[in-house]
């Protein structure tokens, strides 16, 4: 069919995949050979092929999270060959294509590793900690209806663009997976700084940053060592500057807010 690279030859690969029955049981790396992989396949399509083979042989297929396969829903994960979302920068696993691997390669596939992201099964982890952090304050407290006209709140283009750059976070958790401390700073700061930049978000900025950081700590994520691994591995390029903005927001909120408890 219309493969983009007609010269690309099918590849044979060896996969080493983390298998774990459920949250309680111990897991281990299991080796699977896969044959005849087209370079135009996506990484997840390659796993589909393996899973179909496993199924036909009556074996339990490998569970992994995925949904949109367009790089936007943030559901896919996988620590591939020592890096979150694999070797390509700015790419989610679902948008990683097999043309970036070579015939005969051995590929290791592991789940995100963090105390705050316990493994459900195989490569599927529980990222509900992210939701709880957002619930702690990642919103503007407006009810539906009764809001001003959209153009009543002018926002400079550069601010709107910067806010968008932060808001583009897909919540996949690659930042946590990449960080040596399993820190969630990049994820949390993206929302904090998006809201802090916009006039709509400024009203509750202090409470928001205090509560979101507190929840982040409760969830058991590590602290930030400013290694920059998170931003380097972020598939949508969330900037480290957001962490600085969050630090600033947090310190000034703690110094000036009226929450004494």
């Amino acid at each position: 069919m219309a493969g983009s690279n007609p010269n690309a030859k099918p590849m044979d690969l060896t996969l080493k995949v983390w298998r774990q029955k459920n949250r309680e049981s111990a897991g281990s790396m299991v080796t699977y050979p896969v044959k005849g992989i087209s370079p135009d396949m996506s990484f997840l399509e390659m796993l589909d092929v393996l899973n179909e083979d496993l199924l036909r042989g009556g074996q339990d297929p490998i569970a992994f999270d995925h949904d949109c396969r367009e790089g936007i829903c943030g559901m896919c994960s996988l620590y591939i060959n020592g890096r979150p979302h694999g070797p390509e920068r700015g790419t989610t696993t679902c948008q990683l294509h097999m043309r970036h691997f070579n015939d005969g390669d051995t590929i290791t596939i592991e789940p995100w590793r963090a105390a705050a992201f316990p493994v459900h099964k195989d490569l599927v982890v529980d990222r509900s900690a992210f939701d709880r952090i957002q619930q702690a304050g990642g919103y503007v407290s407006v009810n539906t209806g009764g809001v001003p006209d959209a153009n009543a709140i002018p926002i400079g283009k550069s601010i709107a663009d910067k806010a968008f750059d932060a808001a583009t976070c897909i919540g996949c958790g690659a930042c946590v997976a990449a960080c040596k401390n399993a820190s969630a700073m990049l994820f949390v700061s993206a929302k904090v700084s998006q809201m802090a930049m916009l006039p709509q978000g400024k009203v509750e900025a202090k409470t928001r940053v205090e509560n979101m950081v507190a929840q982040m700590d409760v969830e058991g994520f590590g602290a930030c060592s400013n290694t920059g691994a998170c931003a380097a591995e972020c598939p949508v390029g969330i900037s480290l500057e957001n962490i600085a903005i969050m630090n600033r927001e947090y310190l000034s909120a703690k110094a000036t807010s009226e929450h004494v408890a």
Partner: protein
Amino acid sequence: MNWFTKTFSSTLGRKFIMSITGLFLCSFLVVHLVGNLTLFRQDGGEAFNIYSHFMANNPIIRTMEFVLVAGFLFHIYDAIVLTRRNKAARPVGYANSHPEQNSTWSSRNMGLLGTIILVFLLVHLWNFFVPARFGELEGVPNADYLNLYSEVVLAFKNPIYVALYVIAMVALAYHLIHGFQSAFQSLGLTHKKYTPFIQKFGYAFSVLICLGFAAIPLYFFFFV
């Protein structure tokens, strides 16, 4: 816990303390190095001994000594607390991991670098601070100060000491290369205009300070 202790026991609060104490310790390094440079004066140690006498007796310096000790203690204590927390945040590690592809070695090994510096610091205090402060040094004839200079000359003829000092200064350089600019990030002091300067300045600062310190033992070992 009240808001104050809550703030400074949060991950962000502890990083705030790490950066404030870190930058304060950087300022100490500058003062210390400026004083130590008197060792290069060809005056038989007179300027250095006067300087060390001043440091040991000036009331403001003596007061600052407590602040300095507190700075070290907070820096070390928070480093330990944070490191333990960070380890606990990933109880199961990766079988195959390539962090070198997304971050610098020094940024990932601040704890190791800090530990080397701490070991050095203890040896260093034992060598110079303890004798200077607790009076095991001999006096300088016709002067009211002690001869720390002769102690320095003696110590830096020992190749093991010299090697330890040089290694420690390399560790300090790497610690500072990451730590200096990282402190500004932790304090939220970033700006398109100034951050590039801070990063370059931090790099130059780290290298020059450590070169300055390392030059002293090497100078005494080879040339005095």
